[in-house]
């Protein structure tokens, strides 16, 4: 799993470049929380602490959660989400290897339901934000909920490209006008599209290292592309281009880093294709017609439920017994 962490680094670097260093604080806080709670839970469950801590699984959960939530969220939100992921979603279900739900996505789901306001306060890309908070002020906001005199949250936060699209379409603005807003880049969101590209690069590295198989990312990306592409062809006024769907939101991190979690996914090749296609379809549906800014987390959790069934019905035939 250390390799998976490594593969996330380009995306983290892009994130810092386009949105500032606050994400690093979020990641550090989530990591510390995850490691401490992992150690406590291992102790309580009478498991050897060192080998389990060193496997990197807790750290990976922390990073994935941190990368899924707004980078300058209040400290207690980060801690709560991570704690839910590690303690409840992972260890109370039997720990590494036994948890049916992706822990990071459980953490995310808990946060988006409990703290919808804080969970939508995304930092605007540095290039288009009206003003900048310096790093110390960001820390001040995260830990003490204090903003410097005269500055306002709206000046440096913004809705995500996906959210903006939804609101603007609701206001009956034409698609072309929406897409020319500064929050949109050439394909996805300003800044965000490059983070997505970095996830893609990290994912290709994982594929090349044979840490993940092609089935999940290919089926997920293909499904999102085909479904959104079909709707875009039919009704381009209300549906963004499929390339936009791929380059925005959590599509890329989901395809290569979240959905590829082996523990909570199917093991058979055919099962992986079904699982990832289902997740792609649900992601698009929730994203487009649901009330949440993105659909990845719920799509993943819903598909996690189906994994035992998918596995049971996609058993390949054994040597010599092919039909």
């Amino acid at each position: 799993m250390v390799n998976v962490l490594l593969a996330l680094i380009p995306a983290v670097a892009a994130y810092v470049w386009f949105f500032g260093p606050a994400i690093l604080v979020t990641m550090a806080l989530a990591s510390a929380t995850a490691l401490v709670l992992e150690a406590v839970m291992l102790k309580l469950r009478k498991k050897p602490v060192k080998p389990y801590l060193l496997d990197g699984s807790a750290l990976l959960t922390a990073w994935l959660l941190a990368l899924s939530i707004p980078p300058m969220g209040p400290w207690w939100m980060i801690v709560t989400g991570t704690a839910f992921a590690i303690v409840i979603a992972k260890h109370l279900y039997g720990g590494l290897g036994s948890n049916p739900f992706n822990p990071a996505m459980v953490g995310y789901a808990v946060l988006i339901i409990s703290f919808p306001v804080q969970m939508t306060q995304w930092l605007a890309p540095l290039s288009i934000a009206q003003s900048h908070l310096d790093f110390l002020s960001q820390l001040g906001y995260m830990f003490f909920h204090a903003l410097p005199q005269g500055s306002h949250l709206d000046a440096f936060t913004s809705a995500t490209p996906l959210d903006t699209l939804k609101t603007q379409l609701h206001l009956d603005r034409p698609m072309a006008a929406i897409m020319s807003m500064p929050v949109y880049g050439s394909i996805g969101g300003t800044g965000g599209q490059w983070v997505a590209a970095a996830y893609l690069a990290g994912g290709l590295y994982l594929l090349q290292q044979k840490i993940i198989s092609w089935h999940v990312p290919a089926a997920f990306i293909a499904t999102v592309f085909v479904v959104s592409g079909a709707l875009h062809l039919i009704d381009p006024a209300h549906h963004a281009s499929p390339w936009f769907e791929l380059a925005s939101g959590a599509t890329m991190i989901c395809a290569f880093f979240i959905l590829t979690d082996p523990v909570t996914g199917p093991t058979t090749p055919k099962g992986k294709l079904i699982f990832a296609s289902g997740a792609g379809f649900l992601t698009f549906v929730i994203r487009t017609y649901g009330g949440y800014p993105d659909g990845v987390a719920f799509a993943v959790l819903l598909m996690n439920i189906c994994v035992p069934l998918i596995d049971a019905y996609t058993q390949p035939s054994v040597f010599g017994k092919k039909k």
Partner: protein
Amino acid sequence: MRALHHFNGGVHPPEHKGESTLRPIQHPPLPKKLVIPLHQHIGNSAKPLVEAGDIVLKGQMIGKAEGYVSGAIHAPTSGKIISVGHESVPHPSGLKDLCIVLEPDGLESWIDLQPLDPLNMDPSTLRNRLRDAGVVGLGGAVFPSFIKLNPGTGKRIKTLVLNGAECEPYITCDDMLMRERAREIIEGAAVMRHMLHAEEVVIGIEDNKPQAISAMREAAGQSMEVVAVPTIYPGGGAKQLIRVLTGIEVPAGERSTDLGVQCFNVATAASVHRATRYGEPVLSRIVTVTGNVRNPGNFEALIGTPMDHLIDLAGRLEGSTGAIMGGPMMGFDLPSTAVPVVKATNCIIVKSDALFPKNPQPMPCIRCARCAESCPAELQPQELYWFAKAGNFGKAQEYALFDCIECGCCSYVCPSHIPLVQFYRYAKSEIWAQEREKKAADLARIRHDLRLERIEREKREKAERLAQKSAQAKTAENSPSEQK
């Protein structure tokens, strides 16, 4: 060129074959005593034909094949029988088994050998010869060869496959045999072809043995096809090799004969040749002695030679931590090296911490399914592990537990270092135990039912008899006067 097929998965463990192929096959000096187990093959133990004190000749039958699936045992050299009793044998359990202990006299005086002209003889005569010569599969399975050379009426064998793949790391006994005695193997294969009426003979050798391949090609000429197969473990498994060479998949529980293929190890072919052409029974085999020894190599060891004798000849080194019989993937840890070489002993690997580091602490299964990717039987090892661990044996059988060939690829690739095969062996033995128990219970229940029925019947009969008696008595009482 034959189009080769491939099988799922497989692994490439470090080969470690170069060490033991540096020198030709060596002939060790006679050990002080030979311990010859009577059970060296699949099937029934041989029945001892000698007693302590008997003088035997080299090649004399000292154990008779008992029942159909069995093999004869012979004196590997001339000498005196010291005892017939229980001795340590190479088995993972460390349990003792019936053995004949022979003290060589050093004369090597042979019995009268009876050479045959096998290619002009009836297959059934040849089968009897092979049975009496103790010819069994020398690839490790030690199944009596004469049975496999009897396809049965109405069965046609198209392809005879000779297995010279030798895919397990460290083992080189077949490699050296093919390099040095290709002629014998080809002659043996010709006898087998004659016995099976096979249309073609295909000899599969992994492409990491170029010397063996060219020696075999030279010996085979145009009569048989020597095919270099890709080096991938377990490419030497009979089913895998048959698949690679013919494209046929032999399902678990079915015999390849039914699909028109039969497969033998190359060393078995050589012993078929010697047994038929010269009348020599199986008295020795080639054993690779390697691992933590000074001069790893191959020895033509008499059956019954103490393994320690061979390890000493190869140069025992400090830091040995036990030994494996067979290869590192499918072999087993010997409880001791003070056990004899048997017909199944293809390799003795002396272990050391450097060559065989201790397994790291197993971590939980993360369902990554690398095991499934590597499984040549195309099973889902991660599911089988789960079911075996949970004691859910019914489900394990549903997921084809018994199709597992225990090749160890899954354990080898597992990133969590889980000894998966051990779980499958455990599950299999539990299922066997349950079936035995069930059979015993069924038998007991049938006996109980029969007993109850018998008691009931006896009661009924008794009552009927009593009723009859009292009826007779009554009629007697009532009518004495009438009779008079």
